[in-house]
């Protein structure tokens, strides 16, 4: 059986003329961490927020308020295939960048930059957001312009300043690769052995849906272990949820976003034109300068902050909110600032405590493994911000590759 597979692999590789195929790549038959394999063969998310003794309704109750609906129904094979695609530079036009170039697991699934950078050093215009807990999001992109992971990823795959690919080339490259044809057939047995765009999108979305971060120290606190947070951190939590600072009104636990668009009037870096954000998406002048409220999960890992990376540190980012309502709105620009943006007059000590609290939201216990080898034979990642932005091969680290 093994021999058959090996032979078949060799034959296909020869036929396609692709890079040396590696028949040892096999898709996992088990689900990623935090997922249960159901009898029907799909993975179902399981986490501690699903069992608590709420009265009336499982939906609301205490700090254990339920999580929003999430993407599901993926098989283990689809989720694992997505992992290979995610790290594979074959998905970009110049075979130099992968999804992981800007969503690097080592950098909180972001890239450590103020704004994402394209293959030729282009300024993509906005910061690469974390992908942790992206399965719960109804809308994606800072300006809420994508309604699904599938829609969002097409923006990046086919944007001239991001991966610069085309649908035709993407499908052709994957179909020309015998390994991928075999793996897609495994993950999508109902299809005819041809790699389709829909299957590519679905597999990547399946992998993204496995990026769950709900085991932070905050979660331990929320789920009934008060010792999980220090006195300073609890003080920070109380500032965070107080109606003076009002952070929790938009960054609502447990996801730490209410998934709404908020016009907060945060400044662009010096010299950059104003980004109108959701005004364009919804053709609504009242949403000028509005952006999707980002999750704060793993926020300590994803500096710099805000949509265009104006703030280098968490301390600067939280201080923005006490700088005065509209203090950073450019002169002559009319913005409909969110009503929660006001004059909370937070003390330096309160700002420090907020930063203390935000650092309790870090959890990477379900960090996925970076594949050792890719079906394309290319090195995982392609370009990576982590080594200074130059083209770099895979970086061996303790967290990122622990096969």
């Amino acid at each position, binding site marked *: 059986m093994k021999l058959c597979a090996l032979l078949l692999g060799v034959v296909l590789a020869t036929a396609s003329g692709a890079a040396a195929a590696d028949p040892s790549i096999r898709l996992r038959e*088990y689900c990623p*961490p*935090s*997922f*249960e394999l159901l009898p029907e063969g799909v993975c179902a998310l*399981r*986490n*501690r927020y*699903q*069992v*608590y*003794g*709420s*009265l*009336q*309704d499982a939906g*609301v*109750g*205490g*700090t254990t*308020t339920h999580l929003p609906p999430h993407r599901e129904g993926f098989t283990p094979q689809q989720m694992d295939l997505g992992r290979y695609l995610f790290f594979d530079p074959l998905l970009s036009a110049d075979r130099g960048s992968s999804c992981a170039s800007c969503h690097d697991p080592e950098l909180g699934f972001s890239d450590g930059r103020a704004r994402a950078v394209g293959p030729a050093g282009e300024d993509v215009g906005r910061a690469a957001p974390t992908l942790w807990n992206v399965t719960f999001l109804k809308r994606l992109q800072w300006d809420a312009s994508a309604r699904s992971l599938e829609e969002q990823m097409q923006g990046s795959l086919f944007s001239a300043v991001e991966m610069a690919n085309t649908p035709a080339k993407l499908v052709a490259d994957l179909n020309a690769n015998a390994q991928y044809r075999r793996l897609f057939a495994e993950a999508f047995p109902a299809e005819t052995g041809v790699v389709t765009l829909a299957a590519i999108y679905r597999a990547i979305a399946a992998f993204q849906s496995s990026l769950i971060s*709900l*085991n932070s120290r905050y979660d*331990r*606190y*929320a*789920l*009934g*272990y*008060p*010792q*999980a947070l220090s006195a300073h951190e609890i003080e920070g939590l*109380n500032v965070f*949820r*107080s*109606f*003076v*600072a009002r952070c*929790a009104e938009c960054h609502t636990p447990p996801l730490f976003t*209410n*998934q*709404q*668009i*908020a*016009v907060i009037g945060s400044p662009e870096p010096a010299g950059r034109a104003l980004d109108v954000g959701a005004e364009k998406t*919804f053709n*609504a002048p*009242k*949403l000028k300068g509005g952006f999707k409220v980002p999750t704060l999960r793993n926020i300590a890992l994803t500096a710099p902050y805000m949509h265009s990376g104006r703030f280098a540190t968490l301390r600067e980012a939280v201080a923005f909110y006490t700088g005065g*309502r509209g203090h950073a709105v450019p002169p002559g620009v009319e913005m*409909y*600032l*969110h*009503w929660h943006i*006001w*004059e909370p007059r937070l003390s330096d000590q309160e700002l420090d405590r907020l930063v203390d609290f935000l650092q309790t939201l870090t959890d990477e*216990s*379900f*960090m996925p493994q970076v594949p050792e080898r890719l079906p394309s034979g290319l090195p995982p990642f392609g370009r990576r911000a982590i080594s200074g932005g130059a083209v770099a091969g895979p970086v061996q680290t303790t967290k990122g590759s*622990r096969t």
Partner: protein
Amino acid sequence: MIRTLLVGLLLAAVGFAAGRHAGRDAAAAVVVPRPAAAHAATAPGGTAAQPIRSVAGPAGPHVVTVEEGDSIQAAVGAAQPGTTIRIMPGTYRESVYIDKDNIRLVGVIEAGKRPVLDGGGTLNDAILYSGNNVVVENLELRAYKGNGIMGQAGNNFEIRNNVVVDTGVYGIFPQLGQNGIVEYNVVSGIADAAIYVGMSDNIHVAHNEVFDSVAGIEIENSRHAIVENNYVHDNAGGLLAFITPGLPIKTTFDVVFRHNFVVRNNHVNFAAPGSTVAGIPSGTGILVMAADDVVIEGNIISDNKAIGVLIVDHAHAANITADPESDPNSDRVAILDNVMLHNGYDTIPEVKALLLSELKGGDVDIARAGPSPGSCIRERERYVTAGVGDFAECGFSDTADRITYLLPPVPPRTIELAERGKVAYLGVCSGCHLYNGRLIGPPVQAIQALYLDDPQGLADYIAKPVRKRPDFPEMPPQDYLDPQTRLEVAKYMLALTR
């Protein structure tokens, strides 16, 4: 003098109520029927036939007493669920947070003296709770910057008999909760709403006095709320039913404002710039903005200088942003019998323009701007109105069949222990342990070989691990899982077969 007037009004209301069925039924072309079906479908559990006085269930078995000089928070921290914390009269300068279920903070009132939580103008909130079945009674809260009492997602709450003075943005603010009572509180001097029910369901707000605030009682992005028998006076705006745009809950519907005194809400609007309520015209009795199925019944609405009842959509409201996901109109508003006296004697230009367009002038009780489909009004000729010409005649006269939207106390959801173990295993342990491969820790099979008949041994180990295998990193303690869950995790892990 004021007392006399009130008693007079009260008697008038009683007489009015007794006689209302004898009134004529105009032969109107359109009659809006009682929206009973809609309520039956949307009120979980339906409406109760009997008044419900308590939603938090009986008090638990534990009682502790806090004296002046002690910390209330220390008592909460030490309390197990089911504890009543009695707070003796005196002054307490602290913020209290309750992140556990079944805690009662009950002030002890002696010779008229209450325990006072004093924020000194520097502390943020007096009481924050997130637990279920939290009760707060008999306290006096003063001089906080944020809220007097703020609930975040706690269900089955009871907030009763508190005096709340100048506690910042809100006096009493349950948010994201289901099934709660706010009654017999006296709230004043609040820069936004004295009582603010936000994104909540099945709420009863009754017998409160709210005054000298920007807004009296606000029902916002909430459903199934009865607001009755409150004395709402000398605010900038009295009673509000709103959809505020940009919140994750997108609707407000099924709100009953009945049998309230809504009097003299002419306070200067001192809301923070940019806040939603900053747009409320001073002198507004009742304001309905984008909320659906609001019933206004049996209230005495008097001496509100701008307007008695104002119904608007989002487009006509000052200061309101856009939300593509919310219906901006106030649908199916029902104005039943109310006493309206001397309202709108110094109204706003927008209402004056509406009046003029109908060739009316002078004092005005009711105005509507923006679409309000399916709305109705009884005996409209009693009032001076603007913009309600297309309102139908209401096909019902009262909401007497809706005694409460509160739900009877129910026991906690039963969660099987085995389920607890499975979820903890998958939600925590599976990040490091594969069934038969190496991830971070050793495979489950190897652990099974060690502990097969000893789940307790494994449970003890995970609470306080020691390094056993030189080729694996040391396991971090999982002591944040309670002992029962640890045992269930161990059982689940030892029974895995793949």
